[in-house]
């Protein structure tokens, strides 16, 4: 990814919502199989954006059994059967999990509540599992898909010391984390630990460090390249009234 020269960047209005969706989409590679699951509106939008914005072909499968679907509208629920509209096959749950565990899933988007410096995730609980302060959604795809997908990418709508932590309250899933996207930063795994790849043009390396609970390398990191016209247009098409952006209610700070 070619980065503009640091410091030169001016773009006051790259929303945290657009930042996360766009940077999730940028993890998608040509001719690969990419999966989005339940509770995953942002990755769903990222996959649909990539289909529109990028000049290459890839296979998008989702938890609704869709295979390269052409939904007549974008559903609020990322597991909505609308996501199989226009699909020529139904590739249901048992099938896509087996695809992943046998090593043929190239890219999986998986949710997380807490993420540590090793790219492990907690989606189970805040506090002790047996008497939780907050009971979270739980295991889901992570424990099986994170270690078996060729690449897994997660996102967090809050970048803070309680979401990007040194120590997880519970290790729900560990293994193949490849990338993490937050409102202000993109991390990728390097030598077994998350390293900063780039930061939101309105943020800075200092801010990312201040708001991150684990240590990380940042060699070669700089401001994230802005959305291309194609990326911006694609997202505008997917969210014409900005409803998803409003519902997501994500802030940089």
């Amino acid at each position, binding site marked *: 990814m070619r980065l503009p020269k640091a410091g030169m960047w001016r773009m006051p209005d790259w929303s945290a919502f657009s930042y996360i969706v766009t940077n999730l989409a940028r993890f998608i590679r040509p001719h690969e199989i990419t999966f989005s699951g339940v*509770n995953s509106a942002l990755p769903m939008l990222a996959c649909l954006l990539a289909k529109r914005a990028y000049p290459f072909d890839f296979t998008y499968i989702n938890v609704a059994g869709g295979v390269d679907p052409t939904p007549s509208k974008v559903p609020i629920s990322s597991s909505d059967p609308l996501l199989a509209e226009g699909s020529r096959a139904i590739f249901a749950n048992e099938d896509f999990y087996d695809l992943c565990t046998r090593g043929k899933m190239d890219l999986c988007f998986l949710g997380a509540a807490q993420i540590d410096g090793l790219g492990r995730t907690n989606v189970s609980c805040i506090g002790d599992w047996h008497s*939780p302060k907050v009971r979270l959604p739980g295991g*889901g795809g992570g424990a099986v898909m994170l270690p078996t997908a060729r690449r897994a990418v997660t996102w967090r709508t809050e970048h803070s010391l309680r979401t990007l932590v040194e120590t997880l309250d*519970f290790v729900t899933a560990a293994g193949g984390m490849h990338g993490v996207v937050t409102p202000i930063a993109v991390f990728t795994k390097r030598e077994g630990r998350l390293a900063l790849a780039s930061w939101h043009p309105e943020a800075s390396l200092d801010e990312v460090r201040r708001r991150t609970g684990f240590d990380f390398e940042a060699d070669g990191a700089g401001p994230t390249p802005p959305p291309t016209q194609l990326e911006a247009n694609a997202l505008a098409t997917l969210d014409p009234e900005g409803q998803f952006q409003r519902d997501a209610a994500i802030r940089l700070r």
Partner: protein
Amino acid sequence: MSAGTAKIIPLQELAARVVDGSSLAVGGSFLHRGPFAFIRELIRQGRKNLELVKQSPGYDIDLLCRAGALARARAGIVAMEGNFGLAPWYRRAVETGQIRLEEHACATLTAGLRAAAAGVPFMPCGGIHGSDLPALNGWRAILDPYGSGQTVYLIPRIAPEFAVIHANEVSEEGDVRVYGTSHWDRILSRSAARVFVTADRIAPSASFRVQPELTLIPHFLVEAVSIVPNGAWPGSCWPSYEVDYAAIEAYLVDARDGLQAHLDAAPEGRNVAHA
């Protein structure tokens, strides 16, 4: 079960076959094609101490917790989904110890169900390494006896007493057809001792004969069926109806008699279910 016997009964009679303390596998996923009218009927009948088995429950498990009908759950991921986030009454039930949770990954729950479907005591499952779940659940890993050097986790059999599926269409004889994704319904219908089905409508048996490949569950695996139009409300049943988000918003208001108001607002009346 034998062929051809009349299997279509009212919803109340179907729900009445589930006794207190039963383990119940529930079809669909989150807000989509779940047997929600059946779940509400269990609550109307005051069922207690149930176990719910489902990879991705949401509205159903929250409703059961809110009604105090649930004692145990084996689940992968629990949320209302859409933009509703966590399932509030479920969350409270776990945090206060009202229900006992066995936390799974969706695929480990499925592995346990596959063990039951295949008649073996356990099923290997890929991944899991590095997770705290095995220690939590007492899952054992073994080294491949065939020398690959791989260590693989074995998930113990999960054999629910009941599976309840909501389908688009059934035949008079109890054959089951769904449109769009089957979610986890296939494996649920093969792992439970008894399979119940609710369906939006009856379709002619002839239509099943024309396309038998579309039948997800053959009649002889199904004990009984109820015809419940809009039985997945407030969830979706593709392609017939979408999620009723307003109804779920209303459900989530923590008002006195809120549960009863929600039950009363449901499309299935006391008598609708009679086919």
